[in-house]
């Protein structure tokens, strides 16, 4: 079939053609970017924290009338209280292990700093987050040690929350090790923390551990975590607890009474005992919502555009009843009429997606300059193009089939 008659007839419906092409272009531009946003959010939500998240929960509590932790006696008292809590929790029948820790991935409460390879270096540094934990950190959190050794009970110190002392040994994530020591020989090497002068030895490397914050400001150090062998002493404490397999609920229920039994003068409320699954859900609530919202918009958009194509094509078919009849009477088969409308739609949609690709890239660039967006991969745009062409074909099918069913006798009938 030649394109000539199609082009000639399209020239008579300039407005309709422009409208459909415009609509397809706009839909493509918006849908591409919206799907890209959805894809980004899904990637974000699905990134592993490095923890073994099942059977894991967090206890946050605050003592009432506890020492401030600014003097040595107060720090010692707070540490005793913390050790009592730990003993009580570790004794619970449904608990596998417990680690005192200042935060967890996705908790959005963090202690961040920097490490450098030279003492007193304030210029070149690697940003990192600090997790203060004891010798049960790896087993409780389910972290994988890939080099060196884990902490032993003898390594673990304790310090007031505002004590500005550096540890002598740390465990770092592979992300830090690779960046600081690209040769892969981080274990045994010395680093310096927060622009300080005290040498700190790396004794072990773990595969992966995400930082607590989830905001975009941590994007460039999202995996730079460091474990410090110390219990932090303050008027509050956090304990990450691994329940025995399948005993998560029972273990979580047992915590509050057990801690009140140790010391009733403390704050433990509904938010104090949270499963890691809940922490994860809280952290990514906004991302999940944005993805759903974009999905809904895309769905409406696609329906509206498809309906628009059906509506306008139906109108054209109605207008051209007689011409179709004439063509049929002159020997055109039904399939020829069907193909005619399909090809016509392909032409219009083709122009539409070409403009749409430009609009999609333009919109993406605009979003990049105004919001936290990255460049849209070509794959998204290409998929969008194919999807829009397929949508056009699907939408045009019903009116085109109706056109192909116009009987040849229409040609002889006055309207």
């Amino acid at each position, binding site marked *: 079939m030649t394109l000539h008659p199609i082009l000639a007839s399209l020239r008579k419906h300039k407005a309709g053609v422009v409208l459909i092409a415009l609509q397809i272009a*706009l839909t493509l531009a*918006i849908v591409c970017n919206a799907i890209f946003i959805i894809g980004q959010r899904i990637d974000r939500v699905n990134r592993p924290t490095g923890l073994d998240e099942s059977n894991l929960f967090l206890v946050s509590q605050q*003592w009432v009338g506890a020492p401030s932790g600014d003097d040595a006696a107060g720090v010692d008292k707070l540490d005793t209280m913390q050790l009592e809590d730990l003993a009580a929790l570790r004794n619970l029948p449904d608990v596998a292990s417990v680690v005192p820790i200042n935060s967890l991935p996705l908790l959005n409460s963090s202690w961040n700093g920097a490490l450098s390879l030279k003492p007193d270096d304030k210029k070149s540094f690697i940003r990192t987050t600090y997790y203060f934990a004891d010798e049960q950190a790896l087993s409780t959190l389910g972290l994988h040690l890939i080099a060196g050794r884990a902490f032993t009970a003898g390594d673990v110190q304790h310090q007031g929350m505002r004590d500005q002392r550096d540890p002598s040994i740390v465990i770092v994530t592979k992300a830090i090790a690779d960046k600081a020591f690209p040769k892969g020989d981080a274990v045994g090497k010395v680093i310096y923390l927060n622009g300080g002068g005290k040498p700190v030895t790396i004794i072990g490397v773990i595969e992966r551990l995400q930082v607590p914050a989830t905001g975009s400001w941590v994007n460039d150090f999202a995996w730079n975590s460091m474990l410090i062998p110390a219990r932090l002493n303050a*008027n509050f404490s956090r304990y990450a607890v691994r329940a025995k397999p399948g005993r998560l609920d029972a273990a979580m229920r047992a915590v509050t009474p057990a801690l009140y039994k140790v010391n009733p003068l*403390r704050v433990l409320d509904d938010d104090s005992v949270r499963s890691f699954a809940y922490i994860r859900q809280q952290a990514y609530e906004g991302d999940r919502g944005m993805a*759903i919202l974009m999905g809904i918009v895309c769905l409406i958009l696609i329906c509206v555009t498809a309906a628009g194509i059906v509506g306008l094509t139906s109108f054209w078919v109605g207008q051209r009843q007689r011409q179709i009849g004439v063509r049929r009477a002159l020997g055109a088969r039904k399939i020829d009429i069907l193909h005619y409308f399909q090809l016509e739609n392909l032409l219009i949609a083709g122009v539409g997606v070409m403009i749409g690709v430009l609009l999609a890239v333009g919109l993406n660039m605009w979003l990049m300059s105004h*919001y936290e967006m990255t460049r849209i991969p070509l794959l998204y745009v290409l998929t969008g193009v194919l999807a829009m062409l397929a949508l056009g074909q699907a939408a045009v099918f019903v009116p085109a089939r109706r056109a192909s069913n116009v009987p040849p006798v229409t040609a002889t009938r006055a309207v």
Partner: protein
Amino acid sequence: MFTYYLELALRSLRRSPGLTALMVLTIGFGVAASMTTYSVFRAVSGDPIPWKSSKLFVPQIDAWGPNGLSRDNDGEPSDALDYTDAMALMRDHRAKRQSAMYQVSPSVVPVQAGKHPLNVSGHAVYSEFFPMLDAPFLYGSGWNADDDAQRAAVVVISSKLNEKLFGSVNSVGKTLNIEGKDYRVVGVLDNWKPQPRYYDVVNSGGFNEGVEDVFVPFERAIAVSMPNDGNTNCTEIPKESGFVGLQHSSCVWIAYMAELDDAAAVTAYRQYLDGYARDQQKAGRFSWAPNNRLRDVPAWLDFKKVVPSDTRVSLLVALGLLLVCLVNTVGLLLAKFLRRSGEIGVRRALGAPRGAVYTQFLTEAGVVGLAGGVLGLLLTGVGVASVGLVLPKSISALAHVDLSLLSLTLVLAVVATLLAGLYPTFRASRVQPAWQLKSN
């Protein structure tokens, strides 16, 4: 004549129910999506204290200089103050009213026996905080400057905490146990929950589901070492340990707000800040030129990007959807109107001027718009009600339907459809009567 056109429009719309339904649905969904996202945007971008926001200022002083370690390289001073600068500003007292403040999260022990302690959040502030922010009191009032100076053990609590602990009675004068120490309740706030929490954006991140339950005198909180529950940012390790070490360090953790009534006061305060920074430079504490900022609340909220970018992007995408819906409506109206070329031809041949054709078809477009608007109203209602399923509670709880949103929905639907109807109507009015009569 208008009622006649109205009748014609209704009759025409009834004749092709499929096409009509399509147009009404398109308009309805487009408008509802825009209005739902707009209701969220409106809720988070609103001025939390419109009558006074242009008189409330947040001073920033550069206590770190150009080599601050944890500093983004944008030349902006840190967004909070260190203890030294905050205290100097309070001492000099150059604004009409001012308050340094920091976020606290103490425990409260209920008086009733057998009840477990609970955790509350709040701020340590100065007495001028309450009149400066026009905080409404249900009972009592804030404390006074003497209480500030004497580090009095007084507290202002929220109506929510009042209800929880004292059961909706006037608790002024009663005693509240905070962190193991007794405080005298001097005031109960009347459901005060500004959103965003503009007086401390740095720590609240803007929007917060919770109500601030306690406000205690700043210097009292410092005296009893009530820990700072908000962010602490340091460019170097404090030289001393403990809370005192934090106070002596250049770590920033204190929010500050000042009330300045007119342009002259603002200029004077700017000069004061620069003078202060210059004095610090002379004294050798700062080794860099003054680098201060003084933003009013709207500028501060804008600078801190309090409106979540997701909200803006959603609104933009929804507006894009509306645009596509309108293009779609133009196409459908065009098809609908031109299908009636014969009818137009007859009307024109019988002497109807172009204007009459315009009125007739715009009326029809208006009817479609109105129907779409009514559908849009329903869908907007559903959308705003279910936005909580999609967005974080702290934001979705703020979105609500009110009269202005409803009327805006209707107006948007009708105006948008009329605009969409302009071109199809123009085409309809161009129909040549002679051709139509001939071909039929």
